[in-house]
Each structure stands twice: as structure tokens, then as C-alpha cells.
């Protein structure tokens, strides 16, 4: 692609880049692809907002974005990590939530506190269901009779649950 890359074409390429940890989700589904600009010199600028501070997938996503655009013939790519505003699971698309569920991961519900800076007094009880957050439905049988086994699971963004009806364990994408 010798000419200046077309923004829509670039977007279509980027919308196919998937998360290395949860390959059914694209970076667009996750809501971490924030903006794409093509400057007059033909360099493509991609804004990505990291999820968790320590998410090891970030470096890989950066590399995947560069590689996907290189395959599409884009020569100059700058990936910018944009930290503000902070990413939230509220940015995950409806399509992304549906794909997660089909993949066997209970999608995040709405975040418990809406305010940007909640007053921090006391602590939220850690046991599931006691902090006002509804328990996620089992992605396998749909039952809402579920219990949390571990708040920190296979990746930073997930917790481990068990369905007390079908007895299967499942991952839940935590509200964040």
C-alpha cells in the first residue's frame, strides 16, 4: 500500500485483532481500541487503553496490531497506550458479551458503584452475593444458583465460580 492508508480499511483490519488470552474477543469488542488516526505522512496512529495495570497481554496486543497492519501493507504504525480515562468493563460491546457467554465465560455485569470516585469507608464484604453485586448466571445451564470459588483466577480479569445446579465450574469476567 504505497498510498496513504485509508482509515476505514485500517479500522476493518484492527477490528479483527483478537485478545491473546480470550481469542473469541476482538480488541474492539473489549473496548480497548479507542481511536485510529492517519496522519498526512501516512503513519497510522492507534490508541489502545490497557485493561489491568499488570495485564501481560498488552505487549502482545501491541505487537499483534503492528503485525496485522503490516500484513495489510501499512508501513508506519504508532501504537499509543492511552491511560486516561481508565478502561472499564462497561466499554465491552454487547456483541463481545454474547461471544464471551458462548465461549463459556460469564460476561461482566454493570459495575457496582457508578460514581467516578466513591467514598471509601469500610470495606465490601468479600463473599459473593453479599456486596449487592448479582451473581453471574452459569454460562452452561443458565442457572443463577452460582457461588464464587476464587476472586482471582486464570487471568487478572476473571474470577472462578461454580454452578450449584449443574455443578460445573466456570470463569466470570469481573466487573471492573
Amino acid at each position, binding site marked *: 500500500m504505497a498510498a496513504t492508508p485509508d482509515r476505514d480499511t485500517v479500522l476493518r483490519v484492527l477490528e479483527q485483532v483478537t485478545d491473546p488470552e480470550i481469542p473469541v474477543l476482538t480488541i474492539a469488542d473489549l473496548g480497548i481500541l479507542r481511536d485510529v488516526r492517519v496522519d498526512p505522512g501516512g503513519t497510522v496512529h492507534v490508541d489502545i487503553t*490497557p485493561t*489491568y495495570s*499488570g495485564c501481560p497481554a498488552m505487549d502482545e496486543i501491541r505487537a499483534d496490531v503492528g503485525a496485522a497492519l503490516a500484513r495489510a501493507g501499512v508501513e508506519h504504525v504508532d501504537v499509543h497506550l492511552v491511560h486516561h480515562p481508565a478502561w472499564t468493563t462497561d466499554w465491552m460491546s454487547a456483541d463481545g458479551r454474547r461471544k464471551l457467554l458462548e465461549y463459556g465465560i460469564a460476561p461482566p455485569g454493570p459495575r457496582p458503584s457508578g460514581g467516578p470516585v466513591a467514598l471509601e469507608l469500610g*470495606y*465490601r464484604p468479600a463473599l459473593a452475593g453479599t456486596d449487592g453485586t448479582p451473581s453471574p448466571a452459569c454460562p452452561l445451564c443458565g442457572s443463577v444458583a452460582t457461588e464464587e470459588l476464587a476472586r482471582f483466577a486464570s487471568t*487478572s480479569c476473571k474470577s472462578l465460580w461454580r454452578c450449584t445446579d449443574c455443578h460445573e465450574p466456570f470463569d466470570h469476567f469481573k466487573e471492573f
Partner: protein
Amino acid sequence: MSSGATDTDVAAYALRLGDDALVLAQRLGEWAARGPTIEEDVALLNIGLDLLGQARTLLARVGELDGSGRTEDDLAYRRDEREFVNVQLVELANGDFGRTMARQLLVSAFQVPMYAALTGSADETLAAVAGRAVKESRYHLDHAASWVVRLGDGTEESRARVSAGLAEVWPYAAELFERDDLLDRCVIAGIAPDPEPLRLQWDATVDAVLTDAGLERPTTTWAPTGGRRGLHTEHLGYLLAELQHVARSHPGASW
């Protein structure tokens, strides 16, 4: 000079937060394959990973602001003990699981309101780091609080251990709220939160957890100090030796 805080001040303040996060991340990493259950291994390492991510962004910001051009790796791997400005609380040896959780409670009960207030910092990078870190810290606090309650309200053995661990780490928490000229300049400039309201929130959180756990709030008035000036306990040197060994033995190596 209306703000009264220079870039050097902001860098020095960010270094404190970054070192707190980095050193505690390294400590938590020592629990790998040593946790009481595999779920707990995963939890402690996830908490450490969040802290490591916070440290990376903070240390990178330090290098941008202080004019030294140092990278996050330069700062993590190529400074000596006396150049680290973390509070001593985070460098203390893990001890048993009860002590690790007591320390985590004291740190997270500080980091939650601190990061919440820091989201309003006049420094955009600090505010952005805080926006993510406050949400992470809430999970850390939940986790530590639930364990302190479970251990305190558990068996005679678990209660004795968490109680002893709490007594050992407690005196070091005072350093989290210490003021000095640098912090005062950063508070006035809107860079850093004022430690006084943070202490009130910390007290409320910690007291609520200890009450649920049936544990006494320690009454010691001994308050060791010095971490912010590079004076550390005997524990930090060993931690840094392990943290920095590969980078120092193979300068410039990448993988």
C-alpha cells in the same frame, strides 16, 4: 511558580508510589508455589502483578519527569538500596500467610483511598494510573480483609498467627501517613493527596475489619521511619539482590 512543586518534586513523589508497588509486588511473588492452596497462589500473584503494572507506569513517569532519561528498567534494576524510597512496611519479610495478609490489609486499606484521591491529581499520568489502580486495590483490600476476618475468627492457631503477624507489621504502617517538605509541596500543588484524611479512612477500614475478625487493634506507639529517605530494614537488600540479579549479571540482555 504558583504551584510550588517542580517536575523534580513530582518525580520524587511518583518514585515513592512506584517503589511501594514494586517492592510489594516482589514480596508477593515469593509466594509462587508456596501458597496454602493453588487458588491462593494465583490470588497473591495476581495482586503482585497488578502492583507490578502500577510500578511500571509510575517508574516510567519518573524517568520522563526527572530529566535523567532513565527507563523503568533502569530504575527497577540499577538503583541501590539507599536509592529506594518505599515505606519499610512493604519490604518486611513475608513471614507466614497470616502476616502476609495482615500486611496486605494495612497496605491496601491505604492504597484504596490514596489512589481514589490521586485520580484528581494535577499530574495527568498519576491521575490515570490511579484511575485503574483504585479499582485493582479494591479487589486487593477485599481479599486481604476477608482472610484477616477468616483467620482471626477461625481456629486458635489461625487467630494466634494472624494476631502475631498483625502486631509485627503494625508499627510500620505509620510511615504511610508521614509528611515531609516534599509531600507538603506536592499536596499544596494538587499533585498528591493530603495524608490526614487518608489516615481517617484507613482507620475506619482497618477498625471495621479487625472488629469483624475479633482482633485487637495493636496499641504500640513505636513508629519506625526512614524508608522515604532511603533508610531501610535489613530485609530490603536481600529482596533487591534477588530482584536485580539477572539484570546485573547480564547487563543489557533482553529476552
